[in-house]
């Protein structure tokens, strides 16, 4: 990296305004139940985006909220719901009754969605797998097709490469150029970042490039793939960020109750998203005692690794 490299630090508002237009396909929830980019999703809702294609393995309640807010026309996912409480009511209303809008679902399994992103990350048109053979998913998802192996007697599923327009990936720390350290369960984050045309990184902390290069094994997204870096602590709440804060289980349970009916969901949407200009006001609404309860109680630092020579 040269000293002249431009900083990519922008506000969440700028990042979404510039990189997530209506009609985009957006990968979110790549780290599964950890580090879901809720603040980015909320900003997309506030900016009134429409006809988005949401891509992600297990999105927990973020996809449900964006569907309920009318931003979405298509979902390419393995699972849409509320991981600790059950179904996603907005998802159900949209699929079953076109409320607030009709959505198309392209159903994957976790592995086949991971393979679709891996294929795009590898730069090949498809990858083979035994997963999904015999499942009715292959009848409805045109991106999963059976074929005969050219090198053996096997039948396999060809998973078509999937290249989202933009991946929004929360990380623990990044430098201003987008070089990012992340740790914990990674889900499809690494492939997702490489597969996508653009990457928005949402960082708990901004650090100097020296911190990043002190531990290059932990640099899972190189900065040249990154279009924008947003410094937004707690941007993943109510999902957890290892080493920063826990999962707000009560928030998920309460959302489940408050999204059961459309009119209740609209009240929830107004309270937690539309009436909240940015994450700062969201955190104020959450309140200090709740924030204190979710903070890491006991840090557990890794053993240092020696990169000396």
């Amino acid at each position, binding site marked *: 990296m040269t000293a002249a490299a431009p900083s990519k630090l922008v506000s969440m508002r700028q990042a979404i305004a510039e990189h997530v237009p209506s009609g985009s396909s957006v990968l979110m929830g790549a780290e*599964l*139940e950890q580090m879901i980019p809720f603040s980015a999703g909320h900003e997309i809702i506030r900016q009134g985006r429409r006809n988005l294609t949401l891509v992600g393995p297990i999105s927990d309640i973020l996809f449900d909220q964006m569907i309920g807010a009318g931003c979405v026309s298509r979902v390419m996912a393995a699972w849409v719901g509320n991981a600790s409480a059950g179904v996603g009511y907005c998802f159900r209303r949209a699929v*079953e009754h076109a409320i607030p809008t009709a959505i198309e679902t392209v159903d994957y*399994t976790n592995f086949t969605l991971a393979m679709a992103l891996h294929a795009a990350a590898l730069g090949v048109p498809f990858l083979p797998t035994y997963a999904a053979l015999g499942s009715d998913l292959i009848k409805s998802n045109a991106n999963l097709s059976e074929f005969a192996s050219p090198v053996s007697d096997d039948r396999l599923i060809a998973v078509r490469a999937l290249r989202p327009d933009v991946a929004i990936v929360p990380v623990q720390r990044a430098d201003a150029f987008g070089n990012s350290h992340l740790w914990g369960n990674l889900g*499809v*984050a690494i492939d997702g970042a490489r597969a996508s045309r653009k990457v928005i990184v949402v960082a708990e902390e901004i650090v100097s490039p020296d911190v990043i290069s002190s531990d290059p094994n932990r640099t899972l997204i190189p900065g040249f793939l990154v279009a924008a870096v947003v410094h937004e602590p707690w941007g993943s709440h109510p999902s957890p960020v290892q080493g920063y804060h826990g999962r707000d289980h009560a928030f998920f349970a309460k959302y489940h109750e408050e999204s059961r009916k459309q009119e209740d969901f609209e009240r929830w949407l107004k309270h937690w998203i539309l009436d909240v200009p940015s994450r700062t006001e969201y955190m104020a609404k959450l309140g200090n005692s709740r924030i204190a309860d979710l903070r890491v109680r006991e840090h557990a630092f890794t053993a240092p690794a020696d990169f000396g020579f």
Partner: protein
Amino acid sequence: MVAAAAREIRDGELVFVGMRLPMIAFALAKRTHAPGATGLFENGIIRETPASTLLYTMGDPPNLFKATFCGDMISVMSLLQQGRVNVGFLGAAEVDRFGNLNTTWGRRNGQPVRLPGSGGASDIACLAQRTVVILAHDPQRLLARVGHITSPGNGSGAGWRRAQGLPERSGPSAIITTMGVLRFGEDGEAFLTSIHPGIRVEEVLGNTGWPLRVADDLTVTPEPSESELVAIREIDPSHFWTKT
């Protein structure tokens, strides 16, 4: 039910752990008869020790703390596809007589109901050596045929899995319900092998959506032992997952 499910895990096995009750079953097995079992989680975690506190999701911070491995989904799913995983655990909305699972499209009062979908369940059902399903015993859940196969069991009977191209060493092994344990015959169909204490066979048959066959050597599921009960209380002290 959870104790019976945990007993499906043998010591030293590689176990693919699904969401919800399977997480409790794995934690229980680790604390009792299978301390050498290794847990694989689709989000990219491999654990040799059970998490120290209750998990609401597999991505909860206690499941990452002191894990053996944290990586990406393909690094754990690839072990499944290689055929290395001994047993996979799944919950489900519906299961049928051939062990096929539906978690995509249900029905309520005759109307289609959209369910969350496969997650990693279909991958586990396709690729684990043995698949164990845990669900409440209810005629709306144990059906003659599921309307949609999200996760394949034995399809329409013997030979179906191989005809689909699924690995030879794979398929449904047991259905653990709130009333008993079902296993699969040579013809690929589930039959009742064990009833839980206090449950009558007629109750099981009356709550199953097909004419369920009963094993000649039907047994009563052993009561949870004191150490199993202690472990369940430790794992889930507020009964968040183990309500029944």
